[in-house]
């Protein structure tokens, strides 16, 4: 089983990154993006999806990788409060619901096989450009009609 995964994110997109813990041992998630964006580290412990970190970043407009902007995610856990660290096993899956996109990275520190010891969400929305343009046009029309009605009144 892998101890890191590489995900490819869309370019020029605002990404929300959030991590949660379900473990007694301290969890440390390390996100290493391609150049341009600095590495991100979250650390914490707790149960029932205790939030251990959140940030937002925008991917660059171009990337040498044709798959997209690469980020590598790894998770470590510590049995002694952070003095020493051991790698957790990680796996991931995408989930797209309408225009909401979610990449979830799950990890297991080998205690109970729940695969929720540290979970990390990468989320973003991508409404199709055509839809945005249509909506903008519709909203503009609505606004004009509203203004005309107001003027007539």
């Amino acid at each position, binding site marked *: 089983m892998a101890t890191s995964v590489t995900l490819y994110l869309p370019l020029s997109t605002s990404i929300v990154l959030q991590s949660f813990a379900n473990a007694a041992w301290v969890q440390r998630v390390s996100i290493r993006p391609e150049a341009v964006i600095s590495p991100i580290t979250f650390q914490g412990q707790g149960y*029932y999806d205790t939030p251990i970190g959140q940030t937002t970043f925008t991917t660059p407009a171009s990337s040498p990788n044709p798959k997209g902007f690469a980020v590598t995610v790894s998770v470590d856990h510590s049995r002694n409060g952070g003095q020493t660290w051991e790698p957790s096993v990680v*796996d991931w899956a995408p989930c797209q619901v*309408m*225009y909401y996109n979610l990449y979830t990275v799950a990890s*297991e520190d080998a205690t109970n096989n*729940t*695969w929720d010891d540290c979970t990390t969400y990468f989320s973003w*929305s991508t409404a199709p450009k055509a839809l*945005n343009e249509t909506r903008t046009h519709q909203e503009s029309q609505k606004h004009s009609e509203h203004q005309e009605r107001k003027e007539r009144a």
Partner: protein
Amino acid sequence: MGAVTVYLPLAVDTVVKGFTNASYQQRITITPPSPSQPIVFTGSGESNKQIGSAHFTTPSSWPDPLGYPIDVKLEYSTGGGNWNASDIFTGSCTIQAYNLTVVVSEDGIDGDWNDGVCMISWPQVG
């Protein structure tokens, strides 16, 4: 539209979380079967702002073969105390033992389908 029923497996620890990406107030109501009380998250904000979290364990037996049902309703308010049903869609993914169901909503402003987001997760071991 505005509500969906999610069927959970029996005897699993379940976490529900609510997030917003909207300036309008969003309300997420998770209703388990009676006598359990509904869970309600309310708030607004951008960047997947977390507006609530709760957890419960599903019962070890239930008469419905589909599983333990919870109703998930997402609404928005433009003010004045009135709540309107949002349009919603549901998706899910499984990573090893980790299960995640996502319910997203659109309040009709920008069409990005992230105004209210409810995440329901549970581990299923063995």
